[in-house]
């Protein structure tokens, strides 16, 4: 996995962090952590958009963030797993892997190819 894709994945991790923060943060410290997570995730998102098409980056960011939030809800907050949820996560990952395969290394290649 190259650097740009890695930063989208890390951005999605931070997204899960701030979504949990927005829902559960209670103390000042937790709110500061949430704000830092928002900043880091968007910083990485913008950085990744320098070399990858932004439409792809944003789709992957939102998709992985959603899947991560659903997993966190089940693992940390006791939401029940459902078969349909697991299926959705697999479809989502298939879409992300597909995007990685059809997306060139840089924008120039994208346009030419």
């Amino acid at each position: 996995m190259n650097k740009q894709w890695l930063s989208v994945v890390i951005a999605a991790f931070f997204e899960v962090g701030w979504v949990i923060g927005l829902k559960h943060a209670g103390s000042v410290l937790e709110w500061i952590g949430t704000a830092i997570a928002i900043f880091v995730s968007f910083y990485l998102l913008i950085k990744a958009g320098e070399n990858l098409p932004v439409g792809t980056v944003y789709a992957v960011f939102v998709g992985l963030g959603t899947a991560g939030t659903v997993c966190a809800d089940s693992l940390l907050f006791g939401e029940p797993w459902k078969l349909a949820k697991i299926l959705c996560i697999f479809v989502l990952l298939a879409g992300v892997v597909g995007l990685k395969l059809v997306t060139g290394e840089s924008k120039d290649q994208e346009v030419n190819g």
Partner: protein
Amino acid sequence: MAWVALVVAGLCEMMGVYMISKYNDAKSTKNLVLLIVAFTLSFAGLAYAMETLPMGTAYAIWTGIGAAGGALLGMLFFNESKDWRRIVCIGLVFRAAIFLKLLS
């Protein structure tokens, strides 16, 4: 009102995604401010809409408008690939994200 706020929030998110491309083209303060304003309005609108609408529904519609619209703007204005395989994959990711939110 909640529905209006939700649609406006989705449009602001589209605008925000557009501004990420714009900012990467020209790193000006103006572009960065517009990017931040667009996403802030978008989150505020979503939060407002979720006070009355069910969270899963609100989030699914918001993501659908913003992310699909953002990808479309990228194809129209920033020369992003219109390869059908790319469109299919983006469609898969959105649909899965929308269903996940509707399920939870």
